[in-house]
């Protein structure tokens, strides 16, 4: 298991009810991690509809999950 810290934005923060959390996961990729969270929190968006950012860069959803990873999941936002 890897321990990862996840930041949530907008509708993902709303659905998860938290801004940030650290959790243990066996997900090998960011995509798998997101799908795990999507199942846990009933996120309305599929993995290919959100962005992942690591170390202030957008990263590929098929990138690996490593121990100590900090990742932000960012959904599209339209409100104005």
């Amino acid at each position, binding site marked *: 298991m890897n321990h990862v810290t996840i*930041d949530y*934005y*907008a*509708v993902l*923060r*709303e659905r998860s009810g938290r*801004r940030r959390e650290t959790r243990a996961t066996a997900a090998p990729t960011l995509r798998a991690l997101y799908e795990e969270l999507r199942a846990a929190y009933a996120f*309305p*968006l599929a993995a290919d*509809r959100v*962005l992942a*950012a690591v170390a*202030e*860069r*957008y990263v590929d959803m098929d990138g690996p999950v490593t121990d100590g990873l900090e990742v*932000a999941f*960012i*959904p*599209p*936002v*339209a*409100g*104005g």
Partner: protein
Amino acid sequence: MFQLSEQRLRPQELGRALAAGRAGALVTFEGWVRDHNDGRPVEALEYEAFEAMARSVGEAILAAARARFAILDAHAAHRLGPVPVGEAAVWVGVTAEHRQEAFLAARWIMDEIKRLVPVWKRETYGDTGRAEWLHAESGAPATAGDPAADPRYLHQVRVPGVGADGQRRLAAARVLVIGAGGLGCPVLQYLAAAGVGTLVVADGDRVDVGNLHRQVLFGAADVGRNKAEAAAERLRALNPHIALAAHADAATPATLPGWLVGTDLVLDCADDFEVTYLVHDACWQAGIPLVQAAVHQVDGWVQVVDPAGEAGCFRCQWPEPPPPGCVETCARAGVLNVTAGLIGLHQATQALAVLLGWPDAVRDGTLYVDVVGGGTRRVRREPRPDCPCRGHVPWPERQDLVLRPGLTAATLLARACIVDIRQPEERAGDPEWIRQLPLVPRERWLEIPRLFTQRPLVLCCAHGVRTRACVELLGRPDGVYAWTGRIHDLPETVPVRKS
């Protein structure tokens, strides 16, 4: 009434038509033909117009002035044909109960006539005997006097990086704000107060009582009014020294291209993915920098999409809008009023940074803001290799095509058929590559769709004024575009045409 006249303009008669017992002020303006231009002696001058369009645009300007200013009436007249030095080429008259509104409206009308009415002039120079066509647009900022000396901006001008030059840049800028809602209200309020010379606000919605908590330009009395018009009225009171225009329409493929002409910067303050993609694509194609932002409850983000930059476009991040229903708007998801306020101010800040040319604007990233926790995260953006924008070539200057969605300007010009729509005598002295372009003088404009079947077709003229009139004349046919810059600027941007 807007008149086009081949006869000498008679100010007294024109002014009399405005007479009314209620009027306490008549302000008139006359633009005269002078004996020099750019330091060269002028012997004679001839005006030519695309008359049907000039009349309708002129009438629309006068109607807009009557709606915008507290005036009683407004008339204007423009000379056509040869006009001797010393005679009036254009006349504007405005009556009002009070002089202030009459002065403001007269100035605004004159600026709008110069900017929008398709009239162009040919000057015969005394030094060469040659005649040249010039466009009638002045591009003069609408602010009174030198904005850098205006005490209103004193404390802003002192900030390093603004200064007198920066304040003049702001005054010369034309900024289009799409949406006068939760983001648009603070954006407009601060850009108006900062002295952005021309602010254009577009919104097709009406003020709802549920908007008032965050759309702080509006009061209870504005409920039911069009947002763009109510915002423009409020902003005029906040800063009477800038020019304001309101479009009481949503951005659509039909309305947006016209609004973008002459625009230096666009802010997307809309509440709708469809509009966001439409505005982005149009700005990207037109080469106009765009400041985007969006809010959700207590979160928001802002970024600058710069077609001349290297960070790619919005579609590099988000290739397509999310499926309908997955992401809710403010009205459905809810939004804290300070979220819209804070993100709107971030957006206004980015707009000022772009207009002032500051290097640290968020051109290469996205700024995510956690409104309550106060945290920000700046994520770096990069072009996506398979994004359609990859074919985009940065332009040396703002690109000047009236475009419609679906094409980038560079791709368009690279494979377009380019047609010169000037008069044959205007080609004298042109470089060889221009003389090789097909030439269709104005008496044959209507034949253009039949003469040239290849699409896209790009029309060019001396200054990009006649091309717009020509496209209108032809009924805006699909695949026919107006180059709104100078034909002589084409070699910079169309290398294939250089040889």
